[in-house]
């Protein structure tokens, strides 16, 4: 396998763009990434576009807006992991030698659904019994609270930290600090979650351009390398499942660490899938940042805040930066690359050398989650 590096990044601030088409939301991110890379558009060998709910040929719609067409364009749907799965496919294409320069774009427009919880697949029997994503995570939270003595107020501190970070990020959807009192007093969504425990819905796009090491070094000195790239799916079961343990993420993390030759202690910065507050705590444990049942202590210690040893979600994460489902994985990759290049601005993690991006999700009966994609970046 060849070295794979990131040579360009682009991001449209996440927010609400009801008057724009999906293509209009997407192309500025790709344009920014192409211009940043310095690669002539003719050298782009392939495009992998991740979108969960964007409809047919999303990648073609985005790329034709720029007049950059004719190459292989593959559209990837994997729920919340759509554009991170697109990145994994792109990584394989470059690492294997098939392609030299590949665009990865994630784009989503959720405002077309008019707000509320994410529309889920009606074929799923749990959805037909009233399952919504907040309830799924809320049940994880409830059981975790029962087993480890976590309180709703402690859980709410995850949201406070997320918005402390997001307030520093000009690309975040919600740029507002919240207090624990505001978190506790906001309207209930799915007990124990109030509104601030849940990521907002919205629109957005992000793009990265990856290239083989040889090509990348012609355009950049010391480019960020993608040292691990993997996608896994949940394990199906009809029966008992320990919902306090993120089995799918833990399995993916182990594979990713092995691939990159690093461990949790080496990670300086991580963008992880905090769709709801409990998710961030469970993923601290799944990634080995702390022992099982000790995630709140890690949060309370400040280790995962800006200035801490392992800064988690400096962008504000899904809770604050926002979560236009299919765009999230690419946005995480953009964030980590800019962190490792030292150009994250007010929310820069000083001296970050190793970063991790993690997008997982998809409510589906019988599985922990539908998909999980993890990438590790190093400089």
């Amino acid at each position: 396998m060849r070295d794979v590096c990131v040579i360009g990044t682009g991001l449209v601030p996440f927010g609400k763009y009801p008057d724009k088409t999906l293509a209009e939301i997407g192309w500025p991110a790709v344009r920014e990434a192409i211009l940043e890379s310095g690669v002539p558009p003719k050298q782009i060998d392939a495009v992998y576009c991740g979108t969960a709910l964007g409809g047919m040929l999303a990648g073609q719609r985005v790329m034709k807006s720029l007049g950059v067409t004719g190459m292989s364009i593959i559209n990837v749907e994997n729920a919340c992991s759509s554009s991170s799965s697109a990145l994994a496919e792109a990584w394989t294409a470059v690492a294997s030698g098939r392609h030299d320069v590949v665009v990865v774009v994630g784009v989503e427009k959720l405002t077309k659904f008019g707000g509320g919880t994410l529309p889920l697949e009606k074929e799923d029997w749990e959805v037909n019994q009233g399952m919504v994503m907040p309830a799924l995570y809320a049940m994880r939270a409830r059981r975790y609270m029962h087993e480890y003595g976590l309180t709703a107020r402690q859980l709410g501190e995850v949201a406070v930290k997320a918005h402390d970070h997001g307030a520093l990020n000009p690309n975040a959807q919600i740029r507002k600090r919240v207090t624990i009192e505001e978190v506790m007093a906001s309207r209930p969504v799915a007990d124990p979650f109030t509104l601030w425990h849940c990521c907002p819905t919205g629109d957005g796009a992000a793009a990265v351009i990856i290239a083989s090491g040889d090509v990348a070094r012609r355009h950049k000195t010391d480019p960020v390398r993608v040292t691990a790239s993997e996608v896994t799916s949940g394990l199906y079961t009809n029966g008992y499942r320990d919902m306090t343990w993120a089995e799918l993420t833990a399995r993916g993390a182990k594979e990713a660490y092995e691939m990159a030759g690093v461990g949790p202690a080496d990670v300086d910065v991580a963008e992880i899938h905090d769709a709801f507050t409990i998710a961030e705590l469970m993923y601290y444990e799944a990634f080995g940042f702390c022992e099982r049942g000790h995630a709140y202590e890690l949060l309370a210690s400040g280790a995962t805040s800006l200035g801490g040893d392992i800064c988690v979600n400096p962008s504000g994460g899904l809770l604050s930066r926002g979560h236009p489902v299919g765009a999230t994985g690419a946005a995480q990759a953009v964030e980590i690359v800019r962190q490792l290049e030292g150009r994250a601005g007010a929310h820069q993690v000083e001296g970050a050398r190793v970063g991790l991006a993690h997008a997982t999700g998809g409510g589906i009966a019988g599985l922990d989650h539908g998909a999980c994609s993890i990438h590790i970046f190093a400089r």
Partner: protein
Amino acid sequence: MTNPGTLVVNPDAASADSRFVAPELVALDAKGAPRLIGGRCAKCSAVSFPRAAVCTECLSEEVAETELAHEGKLYSFSVVHQAPRGWTVPYALGYVDLSDDVRVLAHIDAPAEQLSIDMPLRLSVGAVGIDTAGVPLLSYTFTPV
């Protein structure tokens, strides 16, 4: 067992003007008590819910209908306040671990303050929402023992 989609069920909970959300999942015994319809593989005996078309343990297509246990424990729950149209909010949703090692997502028919992890529950039928034509929706539910 009878499919409740074709007959009037428990008069307290249903009328000819109501319908089940997923009638294939529930049956009523001779006394009108609800039963969950699962599947049991004829080859390896693995139990499924909903009844699998193909056994997820051995890939056999010989999966027969079977009646599942009607008591279980509440693994976890949430009171849902925001849901798509049709559901009557707030509603309590929970995962119930049945005594035959099947986990079932269900509406829990009990006041929020009575809900607790691991509490014993029994299968029941209840109204859970209203469809777009205004017809009340029923489903299997669980109530405290």
